[in-house]
């Protein structure tokens, strides 16, 4: 059993697909799924990239994507709460 970039991309695209499904249903639960999928793509690129000059860049981008996902989730919750009242 081995792991390569293809398997990581498939799992990340599954998460992105679940996020898109939740977004199609107008659910805020889409945001964490989308953020997790994007972060997994970034970490996978950092792990399996052909050029090994700067392998930490993908992990850094994954951290940034996750933080932005949290910020977007908070904004979305605030927007939904404002729209409900």
């Amino acid at each position, binding site marked *: 059993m081995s792991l390569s970039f293809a*398997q990581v991309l*498939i799992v990340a695209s599954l*998460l*992105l697909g679940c996020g898109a499904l939740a977004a199609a249903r107008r659910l805020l639960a889409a945001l964490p799924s989308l953020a997790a999928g994007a972060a997994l793509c970034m970490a*996978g690129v950092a792990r399996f990239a052909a050029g090994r000059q700067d392998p930490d860049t993908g992990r850094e981008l994954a951290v940034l994507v996750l*933080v932005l996902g949290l*910020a*977007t989730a908070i*904004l*979305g919750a605030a927007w939904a709460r404002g729209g409900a009242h």
Partner: protein
Amino acid sequence: MLGASELPAAPIEHDDRPEKSTGGARLDLVLTIVFYLGALLAVAGALVAALARRGPARLAGMLGLAVGGAVALAGLGAGFAAVTALVCLGGSALVIGGAGASLPAAGGGDQAAQLNLGAAVLLFAALAVVAVGGAAAGSFATGGGAAGFEATAVGRLLFGRDALASEAAGAALLVALAAGAAAWRQRP
């Protein structure tokens, strides 16, 4: 005069060690199993979060997504990103999961939703084809570096080379927290 070309060259040392040791292979296998377990939990949690009708089930799915995503990232050797995923995705689940919040309808009705769903299916199919058919270099054996908690290196990149991007993300989080607090205070 001593020119650059006259400098004595350092002797080249040949590394006769084997490229892949038994311990490294065992670590690769363990990390692969950890990645697949985390991916399974994350995908199941994302599906439950997307399809559940009730708030508690959706919250449980999002918490499963947070834990599974963190475990999968740890399996990829990104320890700091795994901790960040646990905090950020768990925080997102607690913020939006329990109330079962949904976005207000923006118009367009079911046709727009079906169009989005079809686009999502097409996007997933395209990504899967690219992932299976594409060629990517490396594997765990040749990827370089063991699984670790690379907080120092990522911190240097975040606050040294890409400080502007880090500040932008921090500002976005700050604005989100302020807007969330303002919306929370406006509740009757």
